[in-house]
């Protein structure tokens, strides 16, 4: 007699948890969807921009006003990637990440016996590097009181380095570990650093207004601006150097060994 009651209670509990899970998942989905609204032309232009960022002129994202959820107000939202070349997207980073994994597995395979375990090894190590960078970014955002929506933008911008990394490992595979591959590495590292510096200037450095520090007290804008500038500088140069070295170190050298 207690069994149907217990069954109903268990079913209600399960139903409640799946509802909550579904609500959370749909919330993640709706925040990620603007990052994937891309077109063919956007991807081509953005790839060209990543390889050749030196002469690109306006780096700020465009925004429009649109009627917000509250009635009678308008809010300014950034344009989606399909309308604005400077908007970050997650399609290119994701695809270049997967291409990097497959390409490095293929290069390992061409140098010797291929085994599908290789896919798992390279996937896990690359994923580990990305996760570590994500943790560092999250820590930086917390210390500098940067919001969560900007964290997603930062993740997208950091993923662009995989495009350069793919070119580097292709060059290393084709020409060995000599001066050509170091030149290619240097070029793409500088291109990525320049791209990040220019793009993140508008994201991280606020022009006006007070910002709050991590401990809740408002901080003078100039001090916050200086901190964030240092963060931007360190992130663009030092961190990217470390990660690009790590990602390109193991691949391609197996060919000679």
């Amino acid at each position: 007699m207690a069994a149907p009651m217990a069954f109903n209670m268990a079913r209600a509990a399960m139903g409640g948890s799946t509802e909550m899970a579904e609500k959370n998942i749909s919330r993640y989905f709706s925040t990620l969807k603007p990052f994937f609204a891309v077109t063919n032309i956007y991807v081509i232009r953005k790839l060209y921009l990543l390889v050749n960022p030196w002469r690109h002129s306006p780096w700020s994202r465009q925004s429009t006003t649109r009627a917000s959820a509250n009635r009678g107000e308008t809010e300014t939202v950034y344009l989606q990637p399909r309308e604005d070349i400077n908007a970050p997207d997650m399609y290119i980073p994701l695809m270049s990440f997967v291409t990097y994994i497959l390409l490095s597995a293929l290069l390992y395979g061409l140098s010797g016996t291929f085994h599908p375990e290789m896919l798992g090894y390279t996937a896990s190590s690359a994923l580990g590097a990305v996760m570590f960078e994500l943790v560092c970014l999250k820590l930086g955002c917390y210390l500098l009181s940067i919001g969560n929506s900007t964290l997603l933008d930062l993740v997208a911008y950091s993923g662009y380095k995989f495009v350069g990394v793919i070119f580097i490992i292709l060059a290393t595979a084709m020409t060995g570990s000599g001066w050509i591959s170091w030149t290619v590495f240097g070029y793409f590292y500088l291109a990525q650093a320049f791209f990040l510096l220019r793009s993140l200037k508008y994201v991280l450095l606020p022009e006006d207004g007070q910002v709050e520090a991590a401990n809740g007290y408002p901080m003078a804008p100039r001090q916050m601006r200086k901190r964030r500038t240092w963060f931007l500088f360190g992130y663009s140069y030092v961190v990217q150097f470390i990660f690009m070295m790590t990602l390109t170190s193991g691949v391609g050298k197996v060919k000679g060994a």
Partner: protein
Amino acid sequence: MAQFFSPPPQQQQGGYGAQNGLQFYQSQYGQVSGHTTPSQGGYGGFGGMGQMGTTPMVSSASGVAGDRGGLRMGWLAAFGTGGYDDEPPLLEELGVNFTHIKGKTLAVLNPLQTVDQHMMDDSDVAGPIIFCVLFGTFLLLSGKVHFGYIYGVALLGSISLHLLFNLMSPPTHSLNYIRSASVLGYCLLPLVFSSGLGVAYPLDGLVGYFLSVAAIVWSTYAASNMFVGVLGVREMRWLVAYPLALFYSVFGIMSIFGSKASGGVAPKL
């Protein structure tokens, strides 16, 4: 006891011929004649046995079977798929529809014709699973035992592709996972062919590379046609095709490389 073993099947052999394959599918998949394909004629036997429950009872066992809702008695009937009077035939109940499977396979094999957008509405995974197992079998015959990796890559890749296409699609269209897994599995067919060729002729050479690349391009073209048609994203055509190309090239890599799968080679990282 003797009345159970008095052979009702023999009495209905004549009934088979008359009713065989005429009313094979009754409800949603339309009328299919048993004479069109040999496979359906072969299964007409099952259908005929399925009809045993639905035909009006022959006199000898009617008294016994009538109060069980038409269920046939006897040990021969126990091995058949006959059931109660109001049960549909077995393959229809399982949802296996050979006409649709054949139609979808032909749509993949002939990518130059326009794809009917609603063909994939009847999504089944029986065909894709058969293709995956066939792919693994051909690889096995050429010395590469990679069944686990094939299933793993297929599952992980299809889930990620489904998530990616859901994120990329406009809000008006949507996919569910079964449908995208079904499309991906059907478009694996050209790679099954190339791995079948790999049984006889080793693919690890220039001709093999060329064949595998051609098979990957064929699969990608067919799959991207179907996805672009279902999602309605014509301006993202190449963006849809690129992840599909990556997915199928993993299968292509597995079919070219990787013979003598004994132990792993740990990379120097």
